[in-house]
């Protein structure tokens, strides 16, 4: 266990599609979220940075309801990376500075640093996003989110479109972030190997409910529910 400060907490969270979700996320941990397609994984993490709001229950960030934070500030602190890069038309630099400029925190140095971090050459700053490969775009998207210096990183199948090498690279970066910046990560993945490799904790979601949560090892080694047993077998 790395530290034990609770950073995110869900209490009886429900929407039209997910129900009675209780969960705890500790600072500096990687939580991997697994479960069948359509089970409500995306629905859950979209509630954390208020892309949507729950109809029932509440979500606490540092012990305070997420609704009590100014929305932009919350979203700066809880960053999100999507399955597709969703880059804005323009150059790589324009994308990287989008967040920091909102807070007046942009410097050209930061741009270079971010690109170094995702292992892209500095010259990429002036490149048009249309002119770089899909994997590179995804890394720029990742860097764009990191540019906001988030405390929590939400990743919705963010590495699933990457080739193996790039995926490995991003995984290394994630581990580095956790180690150096004590960042907390919640990542949805369909790659069970990845979920096991990276996770400190794992949530298993099925049919709109968190059926199991706990140490990643425990879930994979000794699943408590029939659903998880079955899921681990067929996937």
């Amino acid at each position: 266990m790395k530290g034990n400060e609770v950073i995110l907490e869900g209490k009886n969270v429900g929407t039209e599609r997910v129900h009675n979700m209780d969960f705890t996320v500790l600072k500096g941990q990687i939580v991997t979220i697994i479960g069948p397609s359509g089970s409500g994984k995306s629905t859950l993490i979209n509630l954390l940075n208020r892309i949507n709001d729950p109809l029932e229950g509440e979500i606490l960030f540092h012990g305070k309801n997420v609704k009590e934070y100014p929305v932009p500030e919350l979203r700066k602190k809880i960053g999100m990376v999507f399955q597709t890069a969703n880059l804005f038309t323009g150059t790589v630099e324009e994308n990287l500075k989008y967040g920091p400029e909102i807070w007046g925190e942009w410097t050209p140095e930061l741009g270079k640093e971010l690109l170094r971090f995702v292992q892209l050459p500095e010259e990429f700053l002036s490149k048009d996003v249309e002119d770089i490969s899909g994997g590179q775009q995804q890394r720029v998207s990742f860097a764009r989110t990191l540019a906001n210096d988030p405390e929590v990183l939400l990743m919705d199948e963010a590495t699933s479109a990457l080739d193996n090498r790039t995926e490995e690279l991003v995984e290394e970066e994630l581990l580095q972030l956790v180690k150096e910046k004590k960042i907390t990560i919640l990542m949805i993945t369909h790659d069970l190997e990845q979920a096991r490799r990276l996770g400190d904790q794992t949530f298993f979601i099925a049919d709109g409910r968190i059926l199991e949560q706990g140490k990643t090892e425990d879930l994979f080694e000794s699943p408590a529910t029939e659903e998880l047993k079955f899921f681990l077998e067929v996937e």
Partner: protein
Amino acid sequence: MPEISNLSMLTVIIFVLIPVSLSYLYSLGIAKTTIWSSLRGIIQLILIGYVLTFLFEITDWIAVTLAVLVMISAASWQAGQRGKGIKNAFLVTFTVLAIIEGLVLILWIGFNIIPFESQQVIPMSGMVIGNSMVASALALERLKNDFSVHKGKVLAALSLGATPPKAANIIIRNTIKAAMIPSIDGLKTIGLVQLPGMMTGLIIGGASPIEAIRYQIVISLSIFASVSLTSMFVSAIAYRSFFNKDMQLVEIKEND
């Protein structure tokens, strides 16, 4: 001015029957709407003939006010239909068209470009409002389309902490551009591809081409300015209905 006889009017309808029969042949399923639209168009025009005769007889400012209000309402209703799902699409278009028409009138009358007479102001306003209506409908439709196609980008922007106006900016730029393209193209080919309607009318009516062109320049530029402003204003107001007060994207339900 040569009269067109009732008989020759009827023969024009044959023209309409050609595409109608063809669309039957290709089973495009638009024969009914085509017939209905043509009939509706003819009846509307005949009625308008009488209405205009009446309007041209009463006091200018009353006539202009009446006509402009009716035109703007009809135009806003039509554009609002296209913008179904967008909150207050009718009201947004109505307000924007009213402002645009007001500006155009101030320009025309204030700078003595045309005299304040029903015969001049009403048809010319009609052209401005009609074109602005198309621009508004295009902008609304385009906005809906772009917000759905580029939903990921808007979500990415919001997730980075952007406020709705900033996030919407990614989309609105394209919306305005797209809504303006037809009128920019129209401006480029004016007089080359087609003699604009008003000029055609004036020349048939016996005005000299030069005189007709002066009017056409006024109306073309007025239309261009109005269309551009309409796209901008409508987009700048209507994007709001895609967000709620918590800076979240809301689903736009299209049921047409």
